[in-house]
């Protein structure tokens, strides 16, 4: 059963053969067939959408499939980036069989039910309770910052099954049925006026034990798989020079000479230099990954990217002497492409980049401890029962 090592040419041949026999008229049918042919995510196992091939071959396949129906990766980003690797690593054979195909084809959208109002940076301190009731689990709690929850079919859920042990030990990981009674999704309006995220209220939501992912009490180690994949996926696209937010600023400077002020020239140039440095750092990281030498530089990318984005969008407001916004009304459309809206929107939205997916403060601690090997702070919250922690 073990796959033979593939070459890029093999991939192109397979895709060509597939395309020859699968006209792309029926979008869902086409995607299902692509999955079944192992041409979805090539590094996944045979039978689960892949061919057990090298991850490096995926771009070859994607290129060969260009122009055919895709699974709208932005729409199902949480499923692709977080739920799938978690299911793959920790799911039972049945779970992987049941969930991965519709996840990949986009038929079933996933969301992530981790953060809570009282558990942001300290995710392991979360309070959402899962109580065993005969064979089922009964979930009660509140989750927040849940993107895609308003059209998600499933959620990956972290809940506390035992409050009487230290916080990391009492957690269990579940697949939450978003259509189950007791699940309420409410839009969460942000300072941009939009409601990109949701609050999710779980009120005695009953889940069968088959929806448990991993062992009881092992939720934290399952969640680490999810989180590692989250961090990799944030700020991850390869961009050409001036491809990100700096592009908008540079164009503004070039195309609106009346806005140029002597006192801001050097600031714009500093931002340009910083953006190019961050871009090259990302490029170097990709080369390391491609060469099979993953370095710790990944953790630098999100931190640097957040600061850069905030600096650039801030400078954009200064340069434009911006006092106007376009529209404060609630927008529930799909997530906008970042550079597409106004400078004010970009500026405000960028405030979140140093909070979401790990605050910059937390990232600095992670770099200090895991990369540089600096000693951790004395902790008082690790050995005590969760129930006893001050909150």
């Amino acid at each position, binding site marked *: 059963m073990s796959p033979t090592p593939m070459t890029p040419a093999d991939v192109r041949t397979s895709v060509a053969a597939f395309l020859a026999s699968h006209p792309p008229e029926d979008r869902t049918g086409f995607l299902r067939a692509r999955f079944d042919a192992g041409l979805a995510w090539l590094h996944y196992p045979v039978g689960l959408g892949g061919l057990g091939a090298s991850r490096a071959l995926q771009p070859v396949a994607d290129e060969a499939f260009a122009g055919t129906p895709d699974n709208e990766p932005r729409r199902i980003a949480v499923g692709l980036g977080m739920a799938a690797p978690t299911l793959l690593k920790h799911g039972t054979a049945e779970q992987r069989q049941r969930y991965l195909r519709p996840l990949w084809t986009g038929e079933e959208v996933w969301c992530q039910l981790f953060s809570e109002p009282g558990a*942001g940076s*300290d995710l392991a301190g979360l309070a959402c309770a899962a109580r065993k009731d005969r064979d089922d689990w009964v979930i009660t709690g509140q989750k927040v910052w849940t993107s895609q929850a308003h059209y998600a079919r499933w959620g990956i859920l972290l809940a506390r099954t035992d409050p009487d042990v230290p916080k990391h030990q009492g957690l269990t990981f579940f697949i939450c049925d978003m259509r189950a009674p007791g699940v309420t999704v409410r839009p969460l*309006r942000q300072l941009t006026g939009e409601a990109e995220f949701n609050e999710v209220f779980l009120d005695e939501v009953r889940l069968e034990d088959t929806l448990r992912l991993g062992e009881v009490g092992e939720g934290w180690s399952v969640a680490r798989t999810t989180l590692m994949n989250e961090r990799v996926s944030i700020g991850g696209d390869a961009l050409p020079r001036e491809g990100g937010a700096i592009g908008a600023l540079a164009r503004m400077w070039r195309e609106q000479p009346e806005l140029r002020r002597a006192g801001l020239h050097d600031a714009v140039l500093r931002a340009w230099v910083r953006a190019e440095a961050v871009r090259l750092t990302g490029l170097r990281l990709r080369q390391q990954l491609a060469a099979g030498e993953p370095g710790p530089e990944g953790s630098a990318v999100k931190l640097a990217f957040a600061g850069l984005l*905030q600096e650039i969008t801030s400078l954009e407001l200064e340069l434009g002497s911006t*006092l*106007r916004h376009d529209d*404060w009304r609630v927008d529930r459309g799909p997530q906008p492409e970042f550079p597409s809206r106004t400078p004010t929107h970009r500026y405000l939205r960028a405030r979140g980049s140093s*909070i979401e997916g790990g605050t910059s403060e937390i990232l600095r601690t992670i770099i200090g401890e895991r990369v540089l090997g600096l000693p951790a702070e004395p902790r008082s919250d690790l050995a*005590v029962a969760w129930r006893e922690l001050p909150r």
Partner: protein
Amino acid sequence: MTGLLYSDVESELRSELRAMLRDHCDPAARIERDDAVDVDLWRRLARDMGLAGLLVPEHLGGAGAGPREAAVVCEELGRAVAPVPFLGCAVVAGTALLSCGEPDLVAGLAAGERPVALAVPFATPPAHAWSPTVTVAGDRLTGSVRAVADATIADVLLVPAGRGLFAVDNSGVRREQCTSLDETRRLCDLSFEGAPGRLLAEGADAEAAVRSAVLAGAALLASEQVGVAEWCLDTTVEHVRGRYQFGRPIGSFQAVKHRLADVWVAVTQARAVARYAASALATQSEVDLAAALAQAHCSPVAVEAAEACVQLHGGIGMTWEHRAHLYLKRARSAAVAYGPADVHRARLAELVDLPPAL
């Protein structure tokens, strides 16, 4: 030596105003509405507390106070991001009117009966205050002025046009409210199509009136920025004391504590600089320098404090529900108002002889 402290009278004014705002000001309730100004609150402040005429001499119907007291009012209004037109009406338009010597308009303004606004874009730096975009034919005014602050409820507009400064009644102006970054101080675009205007001042007098008005606005905006920064600091300190993560209040972590210490140092400096600007305005000495310094320094401090406030509140600070965003938007908008910091630094370069590179 310039007095940089608060007098007892000023401190009393502050207490009274703060209590009033605590009871009657709800800025979040005014946003996303057509009537962006809280007219009830403004009536209490303008008429009942006499703030509309704060800078107006007693014999003209005002309170006869000065820029130092007005600065304290700005601080408190900034702390509350109060949606009232004190800066635009009482400070800027008031200064222009007093400079023109218009007893009737002054009296109406001071009584809180007839709000007046200066039709100059909010982003105008003092040094470029005189740049009329409206033309005159006979006594008829035509043209437009964009992004004007505190003009939505003005009964009278003071319009720089041609070589003069004109008073235009409500009926002669078309207003279009902007979607403002700072919804607690909604801007509007004004247009005039042959509107009848009454000449208040001409030539150098008109220029001086407008220039001194915008300069006063810039100088006292700094105090408003101090108030904004102070609210952000206080609110964040309160939050990080009570928010527990990892079994500790997050304010006990150095990353949080040290950032707030830096904000406190910055606010402390901003206060000294803003007091200096108010004193300079009061004594009419070094006003240009003090105003440029104040804007160059206090604009970024308010922004820094508001950004720290959002960051250290974490997710909740990113929501529409929490007030932090009102302060962030006020701070960002105020940083552009009456000219951005780099323009004020460039003005300082002229004033203190640090010329640009050849």
